[in-house]
């Protein structure tokens, strides 16, 4: 039997005692400490398979059971790593940051309370996008989801990790409206109007009175979110837009500078993403179909990919949602703007309520097939992403692309990059697809990633989200005033989690005496 990963300061006997205490609190059917369970909660896309190994897992299904589990964790000073559904592949998925932690799997918490009049929904963390889609379909409710490209995961888990979707409600974390949170000490709090006993407006007004705490529990280890209200988009009367291709790498600059003002002005209310040819190739095909040459793809292969799929060097899809009369006016503005910068192709698309619907992310339909890109190199594929926040400027975007593309070539990796709009920023998503059965490639991933972090840091660009391996590295890059934000986070952590049992190291936040605070 392989050795069981132990938390710092633990013996196998102490872990067994903690396991029995969990069984007593939750029932043996919700406690998972077999070898197969440690396989089950491993990070499938890990670059380093020897890191982030859980000791076991527990699966509370009620708020009271979450409290009971935390009581055991505090009693034994045992680190617990909560996951909603653990499908954020590329960021760590089901695995804990610190080996020896016990995963708290909230997949079994699947309650949905839907306000059909106002389009708000109170969700537990185990509710996946497919579950909520199914709920809406079964009841024929006039609302659309905002789904990410891998919709296997949890709706509120995605929002709590600042994931994004394709519709005007695409910045999912902004659609949180009041949470229920179990603090590390076991106390349950509700934020926003949920703090007001009996208020019918918990899902309607996000702030309540006084400080608003929702974002305190996003990408943090300050509490376990057991319920969250979210807003859903009313089904629009009309959806219009266009898919536009551009021929040259340099076209990125005018694209950003033309789309940016339209986004800021809110003619565009969803967040377009400018991406390169690789996305189609990596989903539809494997690399071996194109070339057997090592190193980054050369120009002839890129040309062949573009030709087969009818792509430019960059492509972008723009969509407008809502009343048809408004959309027609907005569409005309967008079309004029795009044609003015010389697209390679421009393909309009239109839909009106009652017509057959396109089942894609544009209509809030859950999807998983984009994850086929993990199979690009063959073998046991995976990916991580490097995603710095950069200014919404064509000059900045082009320079960032040129720097990053040069690094992909230097490290011999195929470039899959995109520039996704927020209202005032761009997220430059760089996917690193890899083959875990290629040791030489895998040895390049970590130095490559660290190089990109350093390059971005030199420009003042920091990541918005990262894999378990790089949480300390990225947190350290937020270094104004000697890392004042990190020190604040640590003070909050020490106050809320005096025993340091909840998700040590999450987002670079360590309890006193652990990790880099030893």
């Amino acid at each position, binding site marked *: 039997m392989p050795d069981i990963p132990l938390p710092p300061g633990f013996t196998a006997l102490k872990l067994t005692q903690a396991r029995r205490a969990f069984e007593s609190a939750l029932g043996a059917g919700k406690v*998972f400490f077999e070898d197969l369970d440690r396989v*089950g909660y491993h990070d*499938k896309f890990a670059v380093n398979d020897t890191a982030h190994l859980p000791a076991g897992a527990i699966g509370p299904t009620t708020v009271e059971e979450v409290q009971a589990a935390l009581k055991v964790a505090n009693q034994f000073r045992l680190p617990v790593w909560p996951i909603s559904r653990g499908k954020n592949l590329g960021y760590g998925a089901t695995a804990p940051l610190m080996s020896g932690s016990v995963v708290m*799997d909230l997949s079994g918490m699947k309650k949905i309370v839907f306000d059909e009049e106002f389009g708000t929904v109170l969700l537990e963390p185990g509710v996946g996008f497919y579950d909520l889609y199914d709920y809406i379909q079964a009841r024929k409710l006039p609302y659309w989801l905002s789904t990410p490209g891998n919709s296997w995961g949890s709706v509120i888990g995605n929002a709590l990790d600042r994931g994004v979707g394709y519709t005007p409600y695409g910045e999912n974390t902004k659609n949180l409206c009041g949470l229920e949170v179990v603090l590390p000490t076991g106390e349950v709090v509700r934020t926003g109007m949920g703090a007001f006993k009996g208020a019918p407006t918990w899902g309607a007004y996000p702030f309540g009175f006084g400080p608003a705490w929702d974002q305190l529990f996003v990408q943090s280890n300050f509490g376990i979110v057991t319920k969250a209200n979210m807003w859903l988009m009313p089904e629009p009367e009309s959806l219009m837009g266009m898919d536009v291709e551009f021929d040259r790498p340099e076209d990125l600059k005018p694209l950003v500078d033309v789309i940016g003002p339209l986004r800021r002005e809110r003619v565009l209310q969803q967040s377009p993403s400018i991406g390169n040819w690789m996305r189609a190739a990596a989903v539809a095909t494997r690399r071996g179909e194109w070339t057997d040459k090592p190193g980054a793809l050369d120009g002839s292969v890129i040309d062949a990919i573009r030709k087969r799929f009818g792509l430019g060097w960059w492509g972008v899809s723009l969509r407008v949602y809502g009343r048809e009369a408004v959309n027609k006016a907005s569409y005309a503005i967008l079309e004029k703007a795009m044609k003015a910068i010389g697209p390679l192709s421009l393909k309009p698309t239109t839909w009106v309520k009652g017509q057959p619907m396109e089942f894609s992310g544009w209509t809030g339909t859950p999807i998983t097939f984009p*994850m086929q890109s993990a199979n690009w190199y063959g073998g*046991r594929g995976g990916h991580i992403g490097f995603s710095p926040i950069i200014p919404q400027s064509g000059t900045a975007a082009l320079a960032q692309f040129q720097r990053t593309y040069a690094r992909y070539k230097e490290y011999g990796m195929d470039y899959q990059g995109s520039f996704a709009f927020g209202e005032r920023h761009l997220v430059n998503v*760089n996917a690193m697809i890899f083959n875990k059965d290629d040791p030489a490639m895998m040895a390049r991933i970590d130095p490559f990633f660290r190089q990109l972090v350093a390059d971005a840091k030199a420009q003042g660009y920091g990541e918005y989200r990262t894999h378990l391996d790089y949480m300390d590295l990225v947190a350290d890059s937020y270094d104004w005033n000697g890392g004042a934000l990190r020190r604040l986070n640590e003070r909050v952590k020490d106050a809320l989690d005096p025993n340091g049992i909840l998700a040590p190291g999450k987002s670079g936040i360590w309890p006193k005496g652990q990790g880099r605070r030893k």
Partner: protein
Amino acid sequence: MKRLVAGAVLLAGAAAIAQGPAPLPKPETRASRPTATGGEALYLEHCAMCHGPNGMGTGLLARRVQPALLEERKGLGAAFVIAVARNGIGNMPAIPRGEVSDAEMKAIAGYLAAGPHAK
């Protein structure tokens, strides 16, 4: 599967990258088969997102085996299904017991082992 990606809507990391119209089939969930029970209902709830007509698992299996839809396969052994699901395979992550219980997994495996199922 080429038709699924002809318009290429895909994701890198967590950020949306989309391009082109995507003539995709509607996802299959429990709502699409309201009379489903037992292993079939559990399959729709826990597996169809990847192994339905528009799923990652179907797309990847189509590269090496036909039919790619698990429900249309014959000769899938229940023990094999459970072993693959619990350990993961290829690009498929393992399905842990906190997500799908042993009893649920057994019912799903039994349903697939009884296939192929006509649609």
